[in-house]
C-alpha cells in the first residue's frame, strides 16, 4: 500500500515538474532560475521532453505533408537521425559543463542537461501539432508552416541563452560567448572521438592482417 502510494506520489511530482516547463518557456529568466535553485524541475521531466522532441523529429519525416518535407526513403537511416539529434545534446552538455566549470559557472552537469531539456519544450509544442496541420495546407499556405517552424527554433534559441545565463549566473554577453565556445568544444570532442576511432580501427586492422598473414603461412 505504502509502495503504491509512494509511486503515485512520484508520478504526481513528475507531472508537476513537467508542467513547470510551461512556466519556464513563458518566463525564461525566472523559470530557469527557479528550475535549479528552487528544485522545481526534474531530470525525469527533461528526459521526457527530449524523448518527445526526438519523436517529433521522427514523426515529422513520416507524417508531414510532402509539400514541406520531401524524403528519399531509401537513404533514411533511423539510427543516424536519432544519433544526430541526441549526440549534439549530450556532447553539448558535456562541452558546456567542461567549459563553464573552468569559467566559474555555477551549474552542474545535471542542471545543464535539465535546462536543455526544458528549453526544447517549444520545439515539441509547436512542431508536433504542425505535423498534422501541415496536412491541411496547400503549397501557397506554406509560409505559415515555415514561419511557425522558424518561430519554434528562435524560441528554443532564446530559451537556451537564458538557461545558460541563469544556471551559470552569467551576464548575457558571457552566456553568448560561452555558447559559441561550446560549439567549438563540441567540434573538438567530435574530432577527438573520430581520431580515437580511426586509430583503434587502424590498430585492429593491423592485428587482423597479422592474423591473416599467419593463417596464410601455416595452411
Amino acid at each position: 500500500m505504502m509502495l503504491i502510494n509512494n509511486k503515485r506520489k512520484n508520478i504526481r511530482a513528475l507531472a508537476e515538474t513537467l508542467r513547470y516547463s510551461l512556466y519556464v518557456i513563458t518566463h525564461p529568466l525566472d523559470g530557469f532560475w527557479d528550475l535549479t535553485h528552487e528544485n522545481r524541475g526534474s531530470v525525469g521531466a527533461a528526459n521526457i521532453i527530449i524523448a518527445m522532441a526526438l519523436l517529433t523529429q521522427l514523426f515529422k519525416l513520416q507524417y508531414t505533408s510532402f509539400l514541406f518535407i520531401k524524403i528519399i526513403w531509401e537513404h533514411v537511416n533511423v539510427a543516424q537521425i536519432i544519433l544526430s539529434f541526441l549526440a549534439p545534446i549530450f556532447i553539448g552538455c558535456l562541452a558546456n559543463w567542461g567549459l563553464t566549470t573552468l569559467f566559474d559557472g555555477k551549474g552542474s552537469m545535471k542542471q545543464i542537461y535539465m535546462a536543455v531539456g526544458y528549453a526544447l519544450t517549444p520545439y515539441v509544442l509547436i512542431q508536433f501539432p504542425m505535423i498534422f496541420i501541415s496536412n491541411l495546407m496547400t503549397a501557397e499556405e506554406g509560409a505559415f508552416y515555415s514561419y511557425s517552424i522558424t518561430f519554434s527554433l528562435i524560441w528554443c534559441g532564446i530559451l537556451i541563452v537564458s538557461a545558460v545565463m541563469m544556471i551559470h549566473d552569467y551576464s548575457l554577453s558571457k552566456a553568448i560567448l560561452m555558447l559559441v565556445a561550446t560549439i567549438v568544444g563540441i567540434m573538438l570532442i567530435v574530432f577527438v572521438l573520430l581520431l580515437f576511432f580511426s586509430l583503434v580501427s587502424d590498430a585492429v586492422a593491423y592485428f587482423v592482417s597479422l592474423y591473416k598473414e599467419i593463417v596464410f603461412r601455416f595452411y
Partner: protein
Amino acid sequence: MKSKLKIFFFCFVLAWLFPTVTVHAEKTIYTYNYDFWGIERESPDSYRAEVTVMGHSLGIGDFKDPQGLFVRGNLIYICDTGNNRIVVLKKDTEAITVVEEFGEVGGETAATALLGPQDIYAAANGDMYIADTGNQRILHIDAGHRVVKEMRKPEDETVDKLSDFLPVKVVADRSGRTFALAKNYNKGYLVYGSDGIFTGYVGASEVKFNMVDYLWKMVSTKEQRAQLEQFVPTEYNNIALDKDGFIYTTTSVFDENELLKDEAKPIRKLNSMGVDILIKNGWYPPIGDISWGNAGGVTGPSKFVDITALDNDTYYALDRTRGRIFGYDFQGNLLYVFGGLGNKLGYFQLPAAIEHMGHELLVLDSKSAGLTFFSPTEYGSLINQALAEYKRGNYDISSEYWEKVLMMDGNNDLAYIGIGRSLLRQGKYKEAMTYFELKYDDNNYSKAFQLYRKQWIEANIGWIFVLFFLAVLLPAAAGFVRKVKKEVEEI
C-alpha cells in the same frame, strides 16, 4: 536477466552503427530519364536507331568532317565540310537517294568553289543559305545555284578590321532575313536584312559580375590577372529555328557550377528582341545530365552542340561530351535521354548536328562521317501523342495515352502527372492527389487539395457546426446550471 537485456540492447545499437553495403549493378541501359531526386531511372527505348548512312553507301564517296545538316520536307542537306561540297539527299519510304552534290556556286557563268562550308539552311522555295566559312562569306543561292546575295564581314566599328570573319552557322526566316553565328563573335547572333546588309546583333547574353572574382582580381598581379578568365558574354555555338520562327540557341561556354542554378542557360529560346523565353517547369533546368562523373575518361557536364525543335514544341539537344540526345517537352520537362559514345549503331564518336524529319531524328557524326536515322518506338510515339493532345487541350485523351505509357514504364513522372491532371479536371480530387503526391508535384497537388478541402468542408459543414456548438455551448450551459444550483442552495 537485466544484464542479458543490456547486452542484447548493446548489440542491437552496435548493429545499427554499421552502414549497410549497397551493391550497384553495371548499367547497360540505352535510354534513361531523371526522376525528381536527380537519380537516373531506366526507361524503355523511345527512339530506335534505324540505319547509319555513309557517303560510300550512297555512291558519292565518304563524307569528310561533315559539320552542317538541314532537313526541309523529305530533303536532307549535308555540308560536307572536308570535301568542300554540299550533298542533298532525299528520303522516301523505301530508300535514301542522292538528289545532287555540288561544290561550286554561281551557275555556269561565274562559278566559285566553296571552301569548307560549315552550315546550310534551305528555305521553303528551294533557296539555300550556306555558311561558306573558308571564303569568309555567307551565301544565298537559288535552286539553280545562282548567287542571289553574298553576306560578308559586317562593316561595323565593333568588329576588329584585321580579324577573319568565319561564319559557322546560318538560318533564315521567311522574309529572307539571315541570322548567323561567326567564330569569336560574342555579341549574340548577326542579323542581315533581306537585302544582305548587316543590321546588328541580337541575343547577347548579359555579362555577369562576380564579386569573388573581382576581389581576386584586386589582389592578384598583372600576370595572374591575364590568366584569369575574362568577363565576356558567352558565345553561342548553334542556332535553329522552330516552326513559329523562334530561335533556339545552344552554348557550351559556361562555368559548370552555374548549370544547376540555371545561370548558365546552355539552351535558350530567343524571341525577336533576343530575350530568353524558354519555359522551365521541369524538376531541373534543361542542362543535359544532372550529375556528371568520370567514366572512361569522359568528364564534365553535357555540352550541347546542336538543337532541333519539333512541330509539337518538344526539342532535342545533342550533347558532345557523351554523345547523348536529350529530349525536352515544351514545358521543359526532360522526356528521355538516349545515345552514347561508341562504334555501334545508335552511338556516336563526335556528333555535330541534329535535325528532325517529322518525328524522326537525324544525327550527323563528323568523325565517323555517318548520318544516323532514329525513329520513335511505340513508347516514344505514345509520349509524343500524349504531349500533342495535352497541347491541344484534350487532357482526357492525353491521359489515356499516359496510361499506356505507364504500362510500359512505371518510372515516367510525366505520365503520373498527366493522369493526375485529367483526374483533377474530372473532379476526382482525391485520386488526383494520389497521383501528384507520388511524383512530388507540389503545385498540382495543392490545386487538387484546395478543391478537395473545399468539397470536404461543404459536405461536412453540418457536423463541424454541431461539434463547434457542443464545444462552446455545453461548457457554458454546464456553468449556467451550476450557477443556478448554487444560487438555489444559497436560498
